[in-house]
């Protein structure tokens, strides 16, 4: 009697469980809808003008930065991205039919780019910024497809398997992650805003995927906001050993002191009187922003300047205080500053704009997070190539020259001089980043998400 009641109850429970499991299985393996479902495009028929337009969309989206390795064929993949679970590798997106995406239909391509779903229903890791690319318009996706099918040379290069062990390498839970965190709709223009603002918003939120680095992430590694309706959107974030500064109208750590013209100049030439491109932004500049049209850069600047700052997060407004590092030799770190830094950045901290950036009022000297200041001191800056010409001046690496203690002291000095109000830097933090960014290290634990 008891047994049969138990069996009956279990039976009743099993039904909803099975239904739920069935629904789950359906959800995590389903193919998202694509407006291109029944479009068949023959590669031979693709209009060269559409290919050219797609090449520009690829520049806007900076596909090449991740889907290539230095010295390798463009878009052939292979870049290692270290995650705490194990390394993953960017894939071959050349139109090779065996190892690349040559067999993708336009709808397959659309699902991968805007929904993060490969043709076998396998979910892509969100290292691929599809939460941003979801905003791309149908026209831009079509153009992008045309470029990858006809404008890119096919390269036979097999993809490298991820090193994440079972069961962590199961992809289906990513579908649930996407369901919660991705708004899978193309950008919709705000009627209350003008055309330029809307173009800027489209570029920043979509192809530009600025938020991938500049928006802080939540516990599930999700961007806390995907557009201007959320206050954390582009509010600055720590990622990949760098602090990507706020792109909002914050006086200290954002673009508060930058004019729209200066933002355009920065994205087009890599430098302005406030700052010079460095860290992860170097790749974004070298491969992407400098190729954008003046109109698009102006739209981006216009949109970014519309994002209000937050004085509470940003702190008291920085004001320049005149002092020469040479007069403060008693302060720890000042001597190192005078001998190692002042030739370029000046005893007065004002640099030699726009060639050598000022440290007085620099984001890296005002932000709570000291990662960028430590990282660039340890590892120097990457080569900036503007309009085909490499930069004349570059930050040297001090990894081999200065101890953790010396770097901590000189950065603490730099972050407290000339009105700067960044917190002190301790030697442990330097040691940690030294190890994590060591090219010879066997266990990099920083997620490269660019």
């Amino acid at each position, binding site marked *: 009697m008891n047994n049969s009641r138990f069996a009956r109850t279990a039976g009743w429970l099993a039904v909803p469980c099975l239904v739920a499991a069935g629904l789950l299985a359906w959800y995590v393996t389903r193919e998202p809808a694509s407006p291109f479902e029944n479009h068949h495009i023959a590669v031979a028929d693709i209009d060269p003008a559409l290919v050219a337009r797609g090449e520009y969309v690829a520049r806007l989206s900076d596909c090449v930065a991740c889907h290539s390795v230095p010295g390798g064929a463009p878009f052939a993949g292979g870049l290692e991205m270290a995650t705490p679970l194990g390394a993953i590798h960017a894939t071959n997106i050349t139109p090779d039919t065996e190892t690349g995406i040559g067999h993708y239909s336009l709808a397959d391509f659309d699902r991968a780019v805007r929904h993060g779903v490969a043709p076998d229903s396998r979910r892509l890791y969100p290292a691929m910024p599809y939460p941003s690319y979801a905003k791309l318009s149908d026209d831009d996706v079509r153009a992008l497809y045309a470029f990858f099918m006809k404008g890119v040379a096919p390269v036979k290069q097999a993809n490298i398997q991820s090193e994440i062990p079972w069961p962590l390498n199961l992809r289906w839970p990513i579908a649930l992650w996407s369901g919660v965190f991705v708004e899978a709709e193309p950008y919709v223009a705000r009627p209350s805003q003008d055309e330029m603002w809307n173009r800027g918003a489209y570029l920043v939120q979509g192809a530009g995927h600025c938020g991938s680095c500049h928006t802080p992430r939540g516990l599930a590694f999700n961007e806390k906001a995907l557009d201007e309706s959320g206050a954390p959107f582009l509010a600055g974030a720590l990622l990949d050993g760098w602090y990507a500064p706020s792109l909002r109208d914050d006086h200290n750590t954002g673009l508060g002191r930058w004019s729209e013209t200066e933002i355009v100049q920065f994205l087009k030439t890599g430098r302005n009187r406030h700052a010079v491109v460095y860290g992860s932004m170097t790749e974004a500049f070298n491969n992407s922003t400098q190729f954008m049209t003046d109109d698009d850069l102006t739209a981006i600047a216009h949109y970014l300047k519309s994002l209000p700052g937050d004085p509470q997060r940003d702190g008291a407004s920085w004001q320049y205080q005149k002092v020469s590092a040479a007069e403060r*030799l008693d302060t720890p770190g000042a*001597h190192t500053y*005078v*001998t190692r830094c002042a*030739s*370029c950045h000046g005893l007065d901290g004002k640099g*030699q704009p726009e*060639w050598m950036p000022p440290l007085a009022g620099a984001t890296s000297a005002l932000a709570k997070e000291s990662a960028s200041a430590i990282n660039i001191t340890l590892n120097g800056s990457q080569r900036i190539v503007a309009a085909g010409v490499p930069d*004349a*001046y570059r930050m040297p690496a001090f990894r081999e020259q200065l101890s953790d203690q010396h770097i901590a002291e000189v950065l603490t000095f730099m972050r407290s001089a000339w009105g700067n109000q960044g917190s002190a830097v301790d030697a442990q933090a330097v040691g940690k980043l030294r190890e994590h960014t060591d090219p010879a290290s066997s266990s990099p634990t920083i997620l490269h998400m660019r």
Partner: protein
Amino acid sequence: MELRINQKTYQVDADADTPLLWVIRDDLGMTGTKYGCGLAQCGACSVLVDGNVVRSCVTPVAGVVGREVTTIEAIEADEVGKRVVSTWVDLQVAQCGYCQSGQVMAATALLKQNPKPSDAQIEAAMVNLCRCGTYNAIHAAMHELADKGDA
């Protein structure tokens, strides 16, 4: 652009971001200023701009337009520079000599601003690298110059 170097005016055709060192050596043929590291770390390329020592390998030439540049070629035209060079000779400071034009520029800049520098001030200012290790000789020369600082 127009540059003032060693009390002379030169017309130079160079990009704004060209390092001053290249203009001095390659365009104007004054090779007393040396190229060392190209990263402002060694000091071999030191010159004076308005009396302050700067590392010309990291000084965009556009930044010195309208200012007075002094190189090793003219350092003896300066009273302090002349004393520095003569002390350098007296004490036979140089070995291979490659870094010495930069050392002399750094010493001159310090003594012009501060005729009697303390040990700490000398240590802070004389930071150019020397592969031969003439640091002791430089130290001795600086002390002699500082001791006679009021003269």
